[in-house]
């Protein structure tokens, strides 16, 4: 990592810590009690809506949440590959149409329910969409080495006060988010150098703050961040997550529906 990027990340982390300090000191009297595990850490176990926008942020046309372009850092020379055009080849343009994985962070922002389970050692995030499961160690272990790049990357978590910081690396080159459902000319492809930092903390009685930092040195001149909110949905606990097996009845992959299923 270059010195410039290291400084950028340090400034980003510092500003977040400072902002958090100001907010928490201002809210000390009013802030609700944070649910905690037996060992005193904030407890995120529960059922939630997917990450949604804060007021004023750009929205996509589907229910999936997308990044706001005004958050993006400038593209580097060569970073134009981020806005890769569609090719007309369905497997490239719409990989999920063939039940291929949404990947992270796109899948995490998809418009479906999520359920989190937390132990001292792990936070397990299960997303109804494609039954995406992320198992995030919380015991301070380093990233795994020697793995092939992955759709969801390799994630490790650590606590910074009451904030859980999840660091992820080792990604495939894949769609960053669902913006191509909004504008077919903007297919946002992150590179295989993607590094993400998620900062998760309780913000209110039923709301988590979820800040995502996108650090993609092949695409952007600097890391950039966007905060979302994750709203707890205890009323969804009873039904739980519904099954999602994409391969079950994916009738029109690549736009080929046919007529043979109607008997």
């Amino acid at each position: 990592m270059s010195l410039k990027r290291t400084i950028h990340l340090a400034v980003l982390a510092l500003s977040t810590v400072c902002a958090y300090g100001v907010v928490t000191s201002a809210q000390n009297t009013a802030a609700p009690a944070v649910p905690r595990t037996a060992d005193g850490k904030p407890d995120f176990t529960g059922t939630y809506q997917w990450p949604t926008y804060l007021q004023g942020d750009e929205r996509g046309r589907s229910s999936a949440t997308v990044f706001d372009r005004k958050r993006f850092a400038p593209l580097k020379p060569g970073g134009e590959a981020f806005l890769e055009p569609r090719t007309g080849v369905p497997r490239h343009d719409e990989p999920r149409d063939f039940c291929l994985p949404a990947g992270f962070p796109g899948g995490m922002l998809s418009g479906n329910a999520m359920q989190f389970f937390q132990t001292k050692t792990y936070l397990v995030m299960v997303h109804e969409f494609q039954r995406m499961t992320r198992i995030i160690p919380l015991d301070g272990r380093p990233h795994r080495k020697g793995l092939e790049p992955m759709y969801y990357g390799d994630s490790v978590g650590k606590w910074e006060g009451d904030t859980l910081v999840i660091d992820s690396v080792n990604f495939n080159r894949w769609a960053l988010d669902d913006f191509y459902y909004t504008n077919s000319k903007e297919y946002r492809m992150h590179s295989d150098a993607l590094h993400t930092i998620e900062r998760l903390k309780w913000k209110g009685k039923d709301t988590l703050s979820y800040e995502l930092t996108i650090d993609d040195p092949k695409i952007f001149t600097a890391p950039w961040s966007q905060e979302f909110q994750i709203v707890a949905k205890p009323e969804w606990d009873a039904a739980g997550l519904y099954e999602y097996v994409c391969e079950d009845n994916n009738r029109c992959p690549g736009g080929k529906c046919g007529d043979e299923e109607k008997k």
Partner: protein
Amino acid sequence: MKTRLALAACLAMTALAPLAAHHSFAAEFDDTKPVKMTGVIKKVEWTNPHIWFYLDVKNADGTVTTWGFAGGAPGQLMRRGIVKDQLKLGETVVVEGFRAKDGSNNASGGRVTFPDGRNVLTAGAQDRTPGEAR
């Protein structure tokens, strides 16, 4: 009456709520070819990644064509109060959507209107919905 009002309110909210699905509408359906058909529900597949339901639609010459319609994911629909039993076999409904790109007798099933006038948005989120500006 209260129950009916509550149901109507629930269905109205459902009609406004965006739903998510796994596919891009653009890959499978043609938003320049809206369809609106009346037919009898023949079959319902309450399956992932999208529900499918099939209507027997009578043609002008008296023959019948079975059309397939793709909606949202079952979990999404159920969490918003739409359950499989609402699509009753043998019931005559009106469905609005957009025709499949491959020219087959399939379409997106954007909105279903029941005999009593109630309607539900069964489309996936990325789908163009009936009446939406392009």
